[in-house]
């Protein structure tokens, strides 16, 4: 009877020579896989114009209605996006979001993507209402892992 218990203890002891599998978070971090479904980002084209055209397919595809988009017409002199239409308001309630990635799948122009960020704590519920300025990247080049999601030249664009 003791033999069985001893065998178990021996197994445990053996493990102390094995290599460690844990990661010392937050000092060490694992690399997020390509295509991770984390905090949303709104991307721009190479020329700096917003990819989003405010078509609202993301909010239509969202199972939990956490995306609110309002569209408006571009000022031809100072366009926000390519084409006539752009999103004047783009808000995501990240508390409501279930990170299913449907918005990214629905986006016809590759504008909204789920990025690699997963640490976004706030001290107030209201602060989880991410507005366009929180979501929009300054330059898509700054996020190579997001830029690699789509071949920009093969996406739908407008003139």
């Amino acid at each position, binding site marked *: 009877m003791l033999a069985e218990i001893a065998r178990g203890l021996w197994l445990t002891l053996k493990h102390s020579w094995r290599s460690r599998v844990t990661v010392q978070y937050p000092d060490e971090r694992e690399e997020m896989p390509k295509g991770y479904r984390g905090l949303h980002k709104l991307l721009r084209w190479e020329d700096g114009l917003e990819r989003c*055209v*405010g*078509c*609202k*397919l993301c*909010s*239509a595809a969202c199972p939990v209605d956490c995306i609110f988009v*309002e*569209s*408006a*017409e571009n000022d031809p002199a100072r366009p926000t996006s390519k*084409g*006539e*239409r752009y999103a004047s308001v783009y808000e995501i309630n990240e508390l409501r979001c279930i990170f299913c990635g449907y918005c990214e799948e629905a986006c*016809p*122009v590759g504008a909204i993507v789920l990025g690699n960020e997963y640490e976004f704590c706030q001290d107030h519920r209201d602060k989880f209402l991410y507005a366009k300025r929180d979501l929009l990247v300054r330059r898509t080049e700054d996020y190579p892992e997001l830029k690699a999601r789509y071949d920009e030249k093969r996406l*739908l664009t*407008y003139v």
Partner: protein
Amino acid sequence: MADQEITFTLNGEAVAAKKGEPVLEAALRRGLHIPHFCYHSYLSVVGQCRACLVDVLDAGNGKPVPKLQPACATPAIQGMVISTVSPRVKEAQEGVFEFLLKNHPLDCPVCDQGGECPLQDQTMAYAKAVSRTHELRRIYPRKELSAYVKPEMNRCVHCTRCIRFTHEIDGGGEFGWASRGDRTEVGIFEDLPLTSIVSGNVIDICPVGALTDNKYRFTARVWEMAHAEGPCTLCSVGCRQRVWRAGDELKRVTAGENPAVNDAWICDVGRYGWSGVHAGERILRPLIRREGRLQPASWPEALGHIARRLGAILRESGGGAVAGLGGAWATNESAFQFGAFFREVLGSNSVDCRVHPRDLAQTEAQLAAFGAVGGQGSIAGLGRAKGILLVGSDPFEEHPILALQVRKAARGGAAVVSVHPRRIDLRLHSGLRHLCPLPGEEARALRALAKALAEAGAAPSGEGAEGYAHALASADLDALCREADIDPREAREAARALRPEGAEVVVLAGPGAQAEAAAEAANLALLLRAELLFASTGPNLQGALDMGLHPALLPGGRPLGDAAAREACQGAWGGPVGAAPGLSSAQVWDALNERRVRALYLFGCDPAAEHPEGARVRRALEAAEFVVLHASHANASLDYAEVVLPAPTLYEEEGSVTNLERRVQRLRRAVKPLGEAREPWRAFAELSRAMEAPMRAHALDRVRLQARLLCADYAGPLSRLPEEGVRLARERRGAFRAAALPPAAPPAGGLRLILAPALWLSGSFAASAVHLKDMPRAALRLSPPDADRIGAGEGDEAEVELGGRSLRLPVRVDASLPVGLAQAPEGYLAALRGGLDAGAARGGAAVKVRAAAAAPRVKVGG
């Protein structure tokens, strides 16, 4: 013969149809979908999009049709066997869609039609999913159409619905096509801008995103919105419409279908008038005048204030010292409650929904002739009439959908006679006869027409016929025509045209049918055995009258003198009803000046602006001791109010409304009331509680219950209303009233001004609707010689001097006006708060007009 019921077989299912009706129409009604783009049930059939090709396996004679047939242009025949699923139909459908999509731009994400697009939906159902095209797409140069319709012609599939609408329904014929083949382009002619008041319908019928709504552009997606379907409440026609909201905001209005009223069309005022709901002029909370200024107050404060003031006046002077006006802009339920509040709580019969003298004249003329108001004609009857007599009506400006019905009748061969000082435009190329009397002499022109009819063999019969026949016999046609300034030959021709053998005739009396002309219109309707429609400007004037907002009539139109009717009211309301008739809107003003009436309750009306004798009304309002304004929008009468109560607009209220043909329709709340506005029926109940005489009806169903008890023919409609509403028709029987015509006015020299309502300019609601600002602007219309005489061209400012006051208006040169006559929009002048006494004088007021110096050029028109 045409209505013969037949059956044919479609994909193995039996489909019932009327003989000769398009196969497509019968299939759609049965719920079997066949793809189509060019077909529209209210437009002509052209069979050109080829999406509806079907396989006729048996043409009813046992033989198949060798080639595929367009279902829209194939008449249904007994025993036909049709397939829409055979391989060659599938192949044809896929081919048609491939061609349609070949040139279609990749616009779905940026196109407003996305989500409600027949092209998308039918592509999902019938097309292949992968394109074989590698060619470049065709691109048209970008163009603009109007402030309301946004074109993107690259998306066009050439169905020509817009072309057919403007040619057949609207009559303007603005749309057409150019070029051929792959380059075919649909658009408007460069010198013919899209200014029609029904132009917005092309947005609804366009099956793709080629014509979209400029005001709704990019504001919402169809799946984000909910809609309420019901009657439009901006004029008395009551077209069926869909009001779309997202959250608490209205987004747009689209046409609904009601074959009895508006087919599938609405006018642009109805389409864009909703913007008045969110206007800055809205009264959002109660206001009380303190130290000369209106200051915000709570509901209990405001109601308490009214209760105190009215209570004191009642104690000192009795119920007769309080008068109420308005109700034509309210639901039946609120109007009923308004009347009940006055008769039962205040003990006053001085309650009247007719603020404008013409409403008074028209309703009194109907009461005299028929003993009741309304129910003598139908809008559908107008559309299928063989003869139409328009009296003082310019339907395109006043009730655009009635204009479409008149045009429909004219397309069907009806003769149309217009009695109007102007040569009104119905966009008809033929069949329209004008009798243009001097302003104010419409009655004489009608009498002349009656005389001409009598000469042609029409004989009056029925009550009062002898007196009328005598009056006609003693009249001299030439003298009448001379005095009215019309050609007797034309009068005789018009009379002949209006008397085709045994055909239906409709008399449509518009806002121009004032005073004696209203009574003469009724006489003519009796003489022609015609249907009679009076088109008022208040959307629910008919309903308000039926609900008893008349100084001598109780709910249900029963006279106040009828003891049984008063007893019925007492039974419903709990309190006694006085037998003495109250003051009508015509008598209130003098009574106020003479202090016989001390308090005035204005319910959704604006006499200071609406009444043509503005100065007199303003004097009376100033003399009033206590004025309450209960309205949705700040208006000209606000200056005189001591307490202001916010009311919801009819977009924000549940209830029922009655249109000009006496059709009761259910009104659904499209959006919740803005601010602190609450339903008027509820406000009256709360006010009665504040006055310590609580009304029994404190809930909507209680109000309805009372209204059903007291208004006999509303009993059914108010308990269960079908979607298209119920028309409460009345028996067409009345009495001739052969009143002597007033002596002809001596020919007036100089320019005379007449005021006529324009739907988009009249009233505080329309004035506040931002989307209507792009309609033709208010202008002084002058005939070309008159414009030349004062030296003003189109768009120049003119200085108008009227009754000692002067104001500036842009000039519009209008060839439809006779020399010596100017016209200005009724609501607009009044809204200037000038207190003009225009329109009181028969034949128009004398005005002096001169070109204003150095006026900035203003573009007039779309």
